[in-house]
Structures are given as C-alpha cells and as structure tokens.
C-alpha cells in the first residue's frame, strides 16, 4: 500500500516519487533530466515543422520529416516515464540502480544525434567526391616544384576575305622557327541565320625549326591581336613536330566576328607556341612561401614563449600559496592573481588573437601578443605550482648550516625549481608553436594565414604543402620537447 503514493506521484511528475521517499538528490537529478528531455523534444519537434501550427499538424509534419526520431523519442520517453515510477519504489540507498540513468543517457544520445545533424549516409555518399581534393592535400608535392620555361613561337599572317591582297614575302632565318600557310588568305567561320556554323576556309599550316617531339599549342590572333586557342571537335588544336622539327596540318579558320566598324584589310595570324623546360626543378611559390611562413611560425612561438616566461615569473610568485600565506593582504593578492590567471587562461588563444588583431592589426605581432597573454596565464599557474611543490627540507638544512638567504635561494630553492621550470617552459614552447600554426586563421600571422588563403582559393595542393609542413614541424617539436624534458627531470 505504501508503494502506491510514490508511483502515482512519479506518474504525475517524474521524480516527485523520489522526493516523496526522501531521495532528494536522485529525485532532483531525475526531474532536471526529464524536464530537459521534454523541453528539448518540444523544441526539436517544432523546429522539424517550423511553419506549422497546432499540436497535431506539427506532430504530423514532424513525423513525415523524420519518422525515426519521433518514434524513438515517443517510445523511450514513455519507457523512461514508467521506469522512473518503478525506480521511485524500488530504489534504496543499499541497492544501486543505475538503469534509469542509462535510459536517460540513451535518450540524450538520440536527441544529440538529431540536434547535431549527424548524417552517416551523407558522409558515406560524399566520400568519393571529397577524395579528389583530399588526395591533393595528402600528396601535394607536384605543386612544390616548378621549372623555368622558354617559349618558342613561330607564326604566319593571313588576309581575311581578300585573295588579291599581297602579304610581304616570308623569310626563313636559320635556327628560328618558321611557319607558313597555304593559301595565305581565307574566310573565317561564321554563323548563319539559324545560328548554325558555316565553316571557313581550310588551310594547311607547315612549320619547321621547332623542338622535335615537344607538343606545340596552336594560337589564333585576330586583327586587333586578341588571342585565343582555336578548337576543332571540342579539342584545342595542338601539334607535335617530327624528329627534324617539322610539322604540317590542316585547320579550318575559326569563328570570329568582324565588327561592322572594321575598316581596311583584316590580317589575322596563326601562331605555334612551344613551351620548353629549361634547367632542373626549382621550388615553386607555394613551397617557398610555406617555408618562409613556417619559419615565421616557429619564431612566433619562440617569442611568445620568451615573453611569457619573463612576464610569468614574477606573477608565479604572487600565485604560489606557500609564499603568499603570510598575511591577509598577501592571501588576498594570491586569490586575486589566481582568479585573473584562471580567467585569462580559460579564454582560448584564438579569441585573444581576434582581440589582438583589433589592437595591433593583422600580422605575426598580433599572434605573438595573443599567445603571450595566454602563456603568461598558463605558465604563471604551472610555475606557481612548481614553487608550491618545493620540498622545505633542503631549505631547512641549508639554513641550518648558517647560510644567508641568498645562499639558501641559490643552494636549496633554485636547484629544486629548475626541473619543473625547464619542463614547463619547453612544454609551453611546444604548445605555442602548435597554436601559432592556427592563430593565422584569424589574421594572427604565421603559416595558418597562408593555409586559410590556399583553402579559400581551393588550391588544395598548396594547402597540402602547408599542412605537411605543420604536421612535420609539430611532430619534430613534440619529440624534441619530450626528449629535453626527460633529460631535465
């Protein structure tokens, strides 16, 4: 009989039964969880049907949008409701019954899935599309090198629509490319009334003195020297000279509108252009820029660490409990400094960088400023803990030998402080370099600045080079800092 009241109370309001049975903490936790589940469910369901009004229309629309979610929510909420009622009777401090919280966690997981718009299908379907840019990032080294090039050009003029006009004779020079056309005049392709192409004159182009075997591009220059690559059958025209550097091909004069205002003889030109590598591979711009920015990044991290160390040493003494426990004033300073350090530290360097950019403008100095602010707070705390963990024993022993206070600091305190000091400083340098790689995302200079530009330009190969450099630098730094720290402790 005495079990009825909590069950009914729990069915009316989940968690009330626990309160009735004086399990206050559990009851409050259940009430809090249950009300947030209901609240979140209502807000998510109304979002699913955001243009509908009224209980049933909304439910209906939401169900048609995402039936799995609605069924899940309904079933598990009802199950939870009943479970809580049973739990309110069966729970006792002697017997742990975690079941109800497991169920709450499951519902929160389902809600979280829907709220964070997790879409496994999308991830699977879009994987092949993503592979192309990703593969460029993974192996970007094609963009890292480039070659100096040399252009070999030869061309011949043509008269448009005027077979009687005589062009100056072509003269062949030894060692220079030579091109001639047959005939030396023609009509351009045009469009008729139905927008159908009317093919122009077909000409034969002959050439000599080109680099054998190297593909040459065919270019067309109209009467005002606008140049373009003519196409045939959708493909750009190109030509490969034979072993003597000679070639011969036929082409139709391309479509080109002659403006009505054009006067006099129209002379067009066909050119064959060969681009040739000269010399060995040289680093491309993305590689050079990446290296320069990487160096900047490492030094940003170093400068921020050095400033951080210098500024945090005095601060750390103010934040060390064993040093500041003298009077109420020092204790007040201790709590004040600690609180300020905690606040500064809890704001991410990226946000400090946003502030610093407003302060000193874009560039590495803003990044250094942001990292320094964060470093002072982080190192101040770590150093102060190092100071707090000093063993008072040796200090006592050195004092007992009759040493004065400077000698005591030199013999008993400094040797104890060096290992944590060095360890924390190197650790911070490591963090600062890692941080300065991304602080450029918000304009704080360094390699992140470059990376975000390459990504916005969709130049994934160049971005890949930057990513590789970041990864390798961070890995090396990680190893080196771990080694140094291991040696010093």
């Amino acid at each position, binding site marked *: 009989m005495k079990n009825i009241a909590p069950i009914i109370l729990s069915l009316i309001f989940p968690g009330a039964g626990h309160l009735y049975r004086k399990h206050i903490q559990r009851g409050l936790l259940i009430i809090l969880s249950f009300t947030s589940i209901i609240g979140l469910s209502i807000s998510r369901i109304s979002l699913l049907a955001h243009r509908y009004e009224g209980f049933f229309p909304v439910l209906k629309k939401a169900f048609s949008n995402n039936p799995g979610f609605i069924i899940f929510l309904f079933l598990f909420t009802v199950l939870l409701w009943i479970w809580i009622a049973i739990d309110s009777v069966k729970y006792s401090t002697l017997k742990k019954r975690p079941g109800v919280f497991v169920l709450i966690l499951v519902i929160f997981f389902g809600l979280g899935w829907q709220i964070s718009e997790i879409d496994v299908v999308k991830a699977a379907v879009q994987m092949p599309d993503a592979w192309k840019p990703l593969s460029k990032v993974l192996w970007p080294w094609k963009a890292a090198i480039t070659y100096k090039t040399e252009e070999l050009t030869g061309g011949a003029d043509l008269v448009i629509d005027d077979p009687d006009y005589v062009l100056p004779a072509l003269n062949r020079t030894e060692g220079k490319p030579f091109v001639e056309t047959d005939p030396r005049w023609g009509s351009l392709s045009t469009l008729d009334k139905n927008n159908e192409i009317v093919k122009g004159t077909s000409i034969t182009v002959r050439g000599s003195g080109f680099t054998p075997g190297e593909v040459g591009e065919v270019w067309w220059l109209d009467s005002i020297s606008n140049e373009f690559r003519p196409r045939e059958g959708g493909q750009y025209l190109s030509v490969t000279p034979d072993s003597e550097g000679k070639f011969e091909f036929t082409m139709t004069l391309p479509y080109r509108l002659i403006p009505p205002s054009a006067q006099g003889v129209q002379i067009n030109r066909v050119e064959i252009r060969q681009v040739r590598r000269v010399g060995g591979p040289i680093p491309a711009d993305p590689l050079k820029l990446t290296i320069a920015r990487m160096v900047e990044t490492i030094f940003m991290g170093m400068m921020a660490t050095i400033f951080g160390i210098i500024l945090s040493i005095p601060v750390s003494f103010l934040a060390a409990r064993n040093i500041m426990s003298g009077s109420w004033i020092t204790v007040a300073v201790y709590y004040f400094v600690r609180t300020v350090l905690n606040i500064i530290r809890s704001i991410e360097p990226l946000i400090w960088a946003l502030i610093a950019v407003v302060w000193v403008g874009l560039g590495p100095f803003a990044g250094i400023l942001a990292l320094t602010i964060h470093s002072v707070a982080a190192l101040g705390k770590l150093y102060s803990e190092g100071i707090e963990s000093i063993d008072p*024993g040796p200090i006592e*022993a*050195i004092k007992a*030998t*009759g040493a*004065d206070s400077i*000698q005591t600091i030199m*013999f008993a305190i400094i040797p104890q402080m060096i290992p944590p000091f060095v360890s924390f400083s190197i650790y911070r340098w490591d963090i600062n370099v890692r941080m300065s790689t991304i602080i450029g995302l918000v304009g704080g200079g360094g390699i992140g600045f470059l990376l975000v530009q390459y990504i916005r330009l969709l130049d994934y190969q160049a971005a890949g080079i930057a990513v590789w450099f970041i990864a390798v630098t961070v890995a090396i730094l990680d190893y080196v800092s771990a080694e140094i720290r291991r040696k010093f402790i």
Partner: protein
Amino acid sequence: MLEIKNLSKTYGDGTKALKNVSFNLEDGEFLVIIGLSGSGKSTLLRCINRLVEPTSGSITWNGADICAAKGADLRKIRSQIGMVFQHFNLVKRLSVLNNVLSGRLGRVNTWKSLYYKFSKKDYEDAFSALKKVGITQQAYKRADELSGGQQQRVGIARAIMQEPLMVLADEPVASLDPVLAHTILGYIERMNQEQNITVICSLHYLDLVQRYATRVIGLKDGEIVYRGTGEDIRQMTDREFKEIYGEEAERVNAGKPVKGAGL
C-alpha cells in the same frame, strides 16, 4: 654548556608544542630525547638553532644568548651547530660533493658561493668528510641517485664539514633499517667521543637509546616527563619505557605493535 630555561613554543594554529622546557647540558654529552611523534622533539631541536622561533624562554650556549641572536650572529651560531635530519634533506639535484660543501656556506664569501665556487681547502675537507663516512666513490653522483643509508652519510658529512661544536640529530635513523642505524649512529658517536662534540639526538628504539645515550630526556605533550643518565636508561625495563610513551601507546601496544613506540 647549553642552558635552556622555560622554553615554550606555540604554533600559529594554537598547537602548544613545548611547555616550559628547562634543562642544562654539559659539553661533550650525548643527549637522547625520547617521546611519541608530536611530543615536541623536533620543535625542541629546531628551537636550539632557531629554525623555529621560540615563543618564550631562553637558550644560552657557552654564554651566547641564542634566542636574541640576529643576522650574522645567528648565522655564526648556526654554522657551529651541525644538523642531521630524518629525511636527510639533501638538495637532490646537486652532486654529493656540493651537498657536503654546502656545510661551509656559513663561513665562505656569499658571492663566491653563489656560483658554487669553493676554496681548495674546502674541497680537501669535503673529501676527508666523505672519507670518514666511506662514500668517496659517490662524490660526483647526484644526491638522489644514492640509497637511503648513503644519503644519510652525506647528511653526516655535511655536518662534519661545518666543524661543529654541537650536532642536532632529528630521528637520524628512523627511515633506515636497524643495521644501518648502528652505522649512522656510530659516526655520530665517534664525533661525540673523538672531538668532544655535544650531541642532541631524538630516537625511538630503546636498545639504541641504551647503547648511545649518556643522558636522556623524555618528552610528552611538550613537557619533560623523564630525566635520566645513561646508566639509568640502561637499567630501564620495557614497561618503564612505555610509561614515558604514555598509556595510550601502551593500550594500542597490547593489541598489536605500535610503530611510534618502537618496541
């Protein structure tokens, strides 16, 4: 001669560690202080070289008022009093040799010592101190690489280096096994007998007290509850020894061995 009169110490949190402790000690004695943990032994020892400031009372040593000494005078007094600690209190990251040399800090030029520069004689003395405790081989090792027994030898070498007139030893063997205990106390006894250095040492084990003490003081709750000579203590039974340690210890001891009583 050391004269202690009405010495009291109350800590900031209100703990009364010493209450009106008075005793005289002739030069060259080996005084052993016995008592439970928290009975005030450590406080008493630390008042003698002012590592702890006494609240009231006076300490006079060979005519000098230790309680009134300040600055350079206090450091001079401290440099004449060697101290050995239960947990050795070596500077772990310094070499054994530097730890021993730190015994000279009270007598050398401050600025030279700041970059660990000592005279040739200081180095010779440090090696001879290390030789006395038999660990010359370890001179250049870092102090924390040594075993507990070896670390305490370094602690004693540091005290020898002070060329002290008095040695305070705060439970010097409580962290060591019984065989080592005799070795360590043997070094202290040799200083006492060969150079007539006054020794004040706190100990837990009755057999050690009986073996080394020429005089004994029992402390309980900051008050002296027993005074005796070496002869007295050698005739003492376990039961009487327990009484000094208090009924509380005895009752616990009836059930299972109590570490504090050490019996």
